[in-house]
């Protein structure tokens, strides 16, 4: 998501699942929709059948998606940027980019600070690298500005310092030979893929990309996605029907959770969590409100103050006033330069700094990389509250393998919660569609919906503070919390997310209309920064206006035939189905591809027709027109991404635990700013080690979900995939004397798990840098707690490494070093 936000402005899938049917080329890389998003295959197969679309699958193993592909290319785990860098080079060298799009809608023509240097100049790092802190000083990562503060441009794309030329130079060594040497993929197939993908750099041809955790779970995860974003911008495929970059998200409501600020660094609606140094609201505004001098840039984030003030009004109600900075002081702040990610938590537990832990709807004892460390971290706690449908490996960690219950003092509380069909509310899918759903049955026994558990917990904590006071009671006591007396009414939460007026307004400064106190805000364009509006999540503003709950709509009309289904549920932002759709038209508002017009400018009525446009302003070339990427201060699709921790251009680094050198940069093997845990339980192999000669990767199967807590308890699913397995090639099996069905041990520096060997032709040894590279694959669905007889095995995450992407702190569970031995 970080990559998509950096490239285009929003951290979300650009298009929709059912828009996949509109594509001419579908690249599936870092994902396996047939296995993990089966319903999306309906649309992919439809594109193949009805449009003759080409499906290309790039994956270390021949997947179920590959089984439907026109072209399958095997690739070594962790070599995606080499493959994609080669694609970028191919597009540029053969001039297959969509020039009008690139010049008008991307920063390709922008001139970059001449002091900026890339890894080609500095033997593997970008300018500003400090090896001591392993961080970048980004002072040189910037555009050159003219006297008005507007980025200088060269629309001819010839200036040696323009982004386009820098990009060209950056990927100049990503030749077919080099790509093949790094990835292990055969040259003829790489070339074939490049030809097919690059054929869409035309106005009337579109490629789409589907990815998932196969791209994110790397120490270069964000950069994997950035590389493809750049290729898609060059080909002019963003904003188009059948185009975009589609993050097929791993959980039904994970987009919704991210939208609500579940991550440590964002508040609801992607507002940054304040830093300790941002001591008042004014400073927060100054540091977090992007500005631009680009005359045609809408720079939508200039509205951030409206959203944070409205959020504070929703949080703290009448307690939030202009005089007290709308209770800004009551928001938690993070220390500058510190991360508080998932993995930081467990490291802090190991170090004895965190004593209590809510593990809510999750099973970290199986889901976390280096899960053995997590299990040890739980031992250090005073208390653990586990909210789940079942007793899991997390709640029962104290009696797990290798644990001595007598020596563990952690007090564990297991709170049973309702499952998805036992409660009502909204679910937001990958395509940002928030759909209201209804309770089908009552939860069993004492189980309650999560919201009710939180509500009761909050009320009890508040009562305690009221009775006994405390060090800092105000954040709790001043909170505006009223979602029902005995039961939580999720509609009240949804209405607060949409936002409401906190006072009568006789004439709204924006649309001059009158609104009454308590009335629902029509949408976020009417939010204010003076406290007269409250809004729990600005991107959901418009989902529940005065006329009702739009998320509950079930209209099946599809006037464009593109599958937008604009009256089905509601989609953030403003029910816009395809993001950046202003880039699907030329500067006069004429669709690049009239046959798949997402929007078009109607000259007669002076309005856009089709999807909700990404900004209602007229087309770029007309009076009052704006640039298409309204969330970026530049207004442009971003090739030169200065917001990331590890470089403005993606560049190939080996996985941290790779047996291979970096043939591009001898001195820098892996991402120089990758995050690595350093507790005594974090063991790593750096460089080739004959003890762990094989490259392992993890994945999921259709039949199980995440750590398998729900699916291992579903007998019909367990029947289909009953046991931990490891897929290995026929060649490796022969070498190790292993037959299909044999029990083997898979061993990494962190731990070992047993698995049943599936010997298959679907995984092949790869030729990498003159050596044979054996890839093996394991699922991470199993755990010792269930099935109760232990027949399922345990989690693959006992093996995975404590190394993370520096931008997101996502773990590198897609490539690590293992050994395999036959079990006796």
């Amino acid at each position, binding site marked *: 998501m970080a990559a998509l936000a950096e490239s285009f402005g929003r951290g979300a899938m650009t298009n929709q699942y059912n828009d996949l049917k509109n594509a001419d080329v579908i690249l599936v890389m870092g994902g396996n929709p047939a296995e993990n998003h089966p319903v999306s295959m309906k649309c992919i197969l439809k594109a193949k*059948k009805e449009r003759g679309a080409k499906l290309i699958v790039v994956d270390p193993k021949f997947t179920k998606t590959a089984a439907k592909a026109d072209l399958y290319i095997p690739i070594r785990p962790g070599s995606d940027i080499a493959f994609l860098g080669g694609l970028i080079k191919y597009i540029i060298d053969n001039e297959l980019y969509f020039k009008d799009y690139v010049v008008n809608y991307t920063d390709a023509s922008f001139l970059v600070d001449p002091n900026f240097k890339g890894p080609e100049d500095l033997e593997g790092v970008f300018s500003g690298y400090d090896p001591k802190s392993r961080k970048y000083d980004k002072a040189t990562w910037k555009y050159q500005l003219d006297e008005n503060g507007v980025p200088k441009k060269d629309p001819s794309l010839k200036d040696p310092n323009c982004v386009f030329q820098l990009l060209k130079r950056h990927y100049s060594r990503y030749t077919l030979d080099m790509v093949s040497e790094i990835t292990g993929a055969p040259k003829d197939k790489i070339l074939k893929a490049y030809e097919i993908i690059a054929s869409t750099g035309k106005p009337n041809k579109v490629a789409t990309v589907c990815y998932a955790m196969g791209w994110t779970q790397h120490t270069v995860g964000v950069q994997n996605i950035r590389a493809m974003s750049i290729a898609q911008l060059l080909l002019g495929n963003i904003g188009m029907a059948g185009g975009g970059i589609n993050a097929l998200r791993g959980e039904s409501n994970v987009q919704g959770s991210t939208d609500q600020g579940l991550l440590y660094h964002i508040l609801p609606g992607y507002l940054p969590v304040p830093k300790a140094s941002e001591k008042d609201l004014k400073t927060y505004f100054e540091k977090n409100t992007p500005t631009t001098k680009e005359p045609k840039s809408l720079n939508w984030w200039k509205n951030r103050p409206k959203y944070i003030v409205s959020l504070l009004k929703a949080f703290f109600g009448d307690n939030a006033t202009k005089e007290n900075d709308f209770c800004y002081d009551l928001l938690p702040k993070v220390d500058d330069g510190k991360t508080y990610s998932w993995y930081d938590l467990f490291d802090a537990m190991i170090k004895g700094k965190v004593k209590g832990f809510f593990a809510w709807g999750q099973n970290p004892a199986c889901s976390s990389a280096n899960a053995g460390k997590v299990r040890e971290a739980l031992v250090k706690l005073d208390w653990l509250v586990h909210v789940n449908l079942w007793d899991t490996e997390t709640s029962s960690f104290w009696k797990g393998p290798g644990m001595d219950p007598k020596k563990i003092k952690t007090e564990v509380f297991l709170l049973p919660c309702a499952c998805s069909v036992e409660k009502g509310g909204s679910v937001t899918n990958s395509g940002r569609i928030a759909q209201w759903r209804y309770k089908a049955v009552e939860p069993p026994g004492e189980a309650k919906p999560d919201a009710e558990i939180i509500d009761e917990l909050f009320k009890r904590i508040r009562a305690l503070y009221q009775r006994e006071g405390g060090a800092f009671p105000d954040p709790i006591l001043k909170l505006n919390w009223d979602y029902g007396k005995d039961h939580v009414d999720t509609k009240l939460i949804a209405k607060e997310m949409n936002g409401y007026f906190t006072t009568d307004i006789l004439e709204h400064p924006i649309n001059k209309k009158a609104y009454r106190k308590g009335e629902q805000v029509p949408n976020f364009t009417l939010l204010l920064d003076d406290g007269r509006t409250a809004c729990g999540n600005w991107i959901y503003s418009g989902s529940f206006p005065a006329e009702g709950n739009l998320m509950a709509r079930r209209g099946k009309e599809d006037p464009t035939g593109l599958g937008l289904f604009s009256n089905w549920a509601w989609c953030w932002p403003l029910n816009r189905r395809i993001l950046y759709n202003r880039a699907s038209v030329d500067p006069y508002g004429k669709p690049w591809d009239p046959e798949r017009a997402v929007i078009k400018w109607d000259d007669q009525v002076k309005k856009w027709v089709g999807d909700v446009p990404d900004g209602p302003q007229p087309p770029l070339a007309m009076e009052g027109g704006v640039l298409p990427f309204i969330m970026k201060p530049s207004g442009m699709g971003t090739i030169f991404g200065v917001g990331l921790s590890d470089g403005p251009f993606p560049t190939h680094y080996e996985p941290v635990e790779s047996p291979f050198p970096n043939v591009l940069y001898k001195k820098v093997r892996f991402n120089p700013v990758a995050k690595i845990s350093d507790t005594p339980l974090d063991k790593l192999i750096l460089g080739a080690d004959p003890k762990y000669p094989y490259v392992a990767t993890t994945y999921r199967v259709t039949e199980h979900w995440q750590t398998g807590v729900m699916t291992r308890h579903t007998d019909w699913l367990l029947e289909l995939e*009953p046991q931990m397995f490891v897929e290995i090639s026929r060649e490796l099996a022969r070498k190790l004397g292993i*037959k299909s069905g044999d029990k083997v041990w898979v061993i990494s520096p962190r731990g070992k798990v047993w698995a049943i060997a599936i010997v298959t032709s679907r995984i092949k040894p790869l030729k990498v840098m003159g050596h044979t590279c054996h890839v093996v694959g394991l699922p991470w669905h199993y755990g010792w707690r269930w099935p109760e007889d232990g027949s399922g095995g345990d989690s693959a995450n006992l093996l995975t490494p404590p190394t993370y992407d520096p931008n997101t702190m996502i773990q590198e569970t897609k490539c690590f070093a293992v050994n395999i031995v036959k079990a006796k």
Partner: protein
Amino acid sequence: MRYGLLIVPDLCIGCRACQVACKSWNGLPAEKTKNRGTHENPLDLTGYTYNRIRYIEKITPKGEVQWLFVSQRCRHCGEAACVKVCPVGAIQKDEATGIVFYDKNTCIGCQACNQACPFKIPRYDKEGKVSKCHMCIDRVKAWLVPACAKTCPTGAIRFGKREELLDWAKKERYKVIHGEKELGELGVMFALSQEPKYYELVEKPVVREDLIALGQILRVLAAKKVPITKSIIKRLFA
């Protein structure tokens, strides 16, 4: 009007939602399985598994891998050997739909139906009673689509009037429609882009010619209360 299922392996992604939906609708218990070095499970049809997806790995002459997903289940033959051979009429053909269904209460567990079936489909539950796909006749009679077809996300299992299914397969130009003409026109057909053998389907299913006679004899014996056991049937079919 004959109804049927058209199965399209080219559209099947092997998700096995059909396998689960079948168990769910029919209230069939899960079996305790093991991973035996393949994703396929259970390893065969049983008295509690009416439909299973076979995962077939192939290497093409060019050395490319292929992975085929093929449903294994009752084909609902027009000239159903099981119906002909059953001594007690426990398996019957529904005149209205062409569905081959059965009545466990009538079944005497002689297993003649499995012996006679050219696809070796019928299985037996713990009580020895016949079990197999009945094309969700209970749903179909209530104007509902069979559970497997209802749940299939990609349209790889299509339910409908047999003629319309055939028209669709022909319009889509599939190379072979396996079951179009075989055995008095099968109710469950496969639309294929390769020869049936490639998908490990029974290429030319045949019903033994002596079956009708055998069935007649068995029915006479059954009517006279002569016990018809598994071992007798085995010997008759040997």
